[in-house]
């Protein structure tokens, strides 16, 4: 008869270690021996296997390869070298990173995947800039992508930390959208005029922030919430 020193429970003879805390049985008077019969057999049932997600992603990736090859061939055959087909290749790459890449991993690593998504968007914008011959990527494309990335990742982490109430979520999203729009105008005006000028974003920020604040207050006021629910039930 052995007891777990951590949990204080008596362990059945079949237990090599405590099934609750996994501390090994230490009983000098009765060292553990494998019992003639265990509570369950050694035989592990062969159950239906999971669909191999990595295999599925590779298959879809190969299918996406077809439009790339076709467009590149058409582009080359038309005699202008690699022109418009580069956009298709870039778009396929973007889909691959944002949609298919997570399938190769067992767990969804939020920070890594979201960073990769926005990295891929930035790269695609850079490609467009190179192909179209502009100079807007460093001044506009990259900062806007980074701002969108920071807002999205921030929201995801905030929600993962426990902002689980729907009204609270809506409130935070509204305020973030308002702030993002201000950020967009700041960056575009800096790029176009070389100075910060606010024209339209404040008109967007005010309703977004007001609505966001209202929903956050509503979330805290249980009686008001209940009263609205009572009047609007269907």
């Amino acid at each position, binding site marked *: 008869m052995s007891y*777990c020193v951590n*949990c*204080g*429970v*008596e*362990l*059945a003879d*079949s*237990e*090599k*270690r*405590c*099934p*609750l*805390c*996994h501390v090994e049985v230490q009983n000098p008077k009765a060292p553990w021996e494998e019992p003639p*019969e*265990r*509570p*369950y*057999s*050694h*035989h*592990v*049932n062969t*159950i*239906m296997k*999971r669909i191999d997600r990595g295999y599925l992603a590779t298959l879809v990736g190969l299918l996406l390869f077809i439009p790339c090859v076709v467009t590149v061939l058409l582009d080359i055959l038309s005699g202008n070298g690699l022109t418009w087909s580069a956009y298709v290749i870039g778009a396929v790459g973007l889909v691959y990173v944002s949609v298919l890449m997570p399938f190769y991993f*067992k767990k969804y690593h939020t920070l890594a995947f979201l960073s990769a998504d926005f990295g891929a968007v930035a790269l695609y914008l850079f490609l467009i800039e190179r192909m179209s011959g502009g100079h807007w990527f460093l001044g506009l494309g990259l900062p806007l992508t980074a701002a969108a990335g920071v807002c999205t990742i921030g929201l995801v982490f905030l929600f993962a*930390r*426990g*902002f*689980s109430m729907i009204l609270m979520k809506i409130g935070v999203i509204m305020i973030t959208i308002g702030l993002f729009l201000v950020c967009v105008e700041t960056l575009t005006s800096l790029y176009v005029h070389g100075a910060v000028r606010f024209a339209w974003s404040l008109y967007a920020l005010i309703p977004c922030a007001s609505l966001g604040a209202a929903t956050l207050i509503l979330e805290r006021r249980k009686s008001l919430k209940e009263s609205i629910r009572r009047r609007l039930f269907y």
Partner: protein
Amino acid sequence: MTDKKTAHKRWMKLDNAAKIYPAAKRRRWKALFRLSATLTETVDPAVLEEAQHAALARFPGFATKLKKGAFWYYMEHNEGGPPVEPDGAYPCPPLNFRENNGFMFRVRYHGKRIAVEIFHALTDGSGGLCFLKTLVAEYLRIRYGADIPRDNEILDCTAPPTPGETEDAYLKYARDIGRSRREPDAYYLKGTRETDGYIHSVTGMIPVDEVLKRAKEKQVSLTEYLTAALIMAVDKIQRRKIWHQKLYKPVKVCVPINLRQFYPTNTMRNFASYVNPGIDPRYGQYDFDEALNAVHHYMRAEVTEKLLNAKISTNVRTEKHAALRLTPLFLKNIAMKWTFARVGDRKSSTSISNLGLVRLPDEMARYVARIDFLLGPLSRTKVACGALSYQGVLYLNFTRTIRESVLEREFFRYLVRLGIPVKVESNDRW
């Protein structure tokens, strides 16, 4: 056993509670539960197969396969029986109906143990226990010539089934007025999912007198006492994992209620409802007595014929709704899957299903050393507990789909701290 010419015509509708399970089932998950009896001698599989054949004659609901109609699933009579198979390393692995000859339950054996694993669409825990008792009685009759008296719980397999045994008691007893099922979502346990689908089982064996004595001191029932202890264990886990009190969610435990205690029915199909007693930790830290008080008064208020009837009446009214009835099955499936995902087991942190005290006649009890009840993995809830008492021992069987044994650890440690001796056994991999 059957007139083969008419066998194909015999069919039955799924009962009201069963309707959700075929729609909610997935390739790798079906709502299963398991009942097992450990005998005093090693089980003979050939005799067990014969016993199963005999028992099936009295349980027409079990001798069926699931079929799809245009508007609803239904059960059609199925000849023969499922293969009696050796038990595996864990309870309730996904059941493939096709590989099981179409049957929605299986019979397994390991050493001295006979186990039945049943798809919830067939019956509930009480119906399953009746099937297990009858199966074991038939086994003992064939193996040892035991003359076991038959009653409402150990059925006479030479007699034909009565109409009452296959009735849908929900339809029979539901009334016109229902009540809302709406309630807030509960905190649910998270953990590392076993990639190979391994289901962990930890059994706690406790002298039932010890728990009953403490429950009586507090003037509550044994189920209420265990539920409160489980709530305290979940509460402790939530407090450790969630960083701010405002973000705590209610801790609730789903307690199935056998409706047969309220109505004169001997149905062998589903006839249970549930209640979700719990606490809201946002309002402060509950001690055991407060949690016990909350559970006790909630159960006293909720577990009444009127309120439980209103609960089942809501489901029956939904089933009877003309527009819903005329909706094609594939659309119903989508809707029911969605409903199950949204409501299902989101309203409780875990479940404890107590079948109560199991009694066997002396002629049978001398061959049966132990009886266990296990809930199969639930859809969202990672840990569930099945309980029953037999020959002075309370068997608490926890099943979980995650690697971490955190809930069982907190729960059993809590009981030990309350001065209750606990002996544990598991199917852990060494």
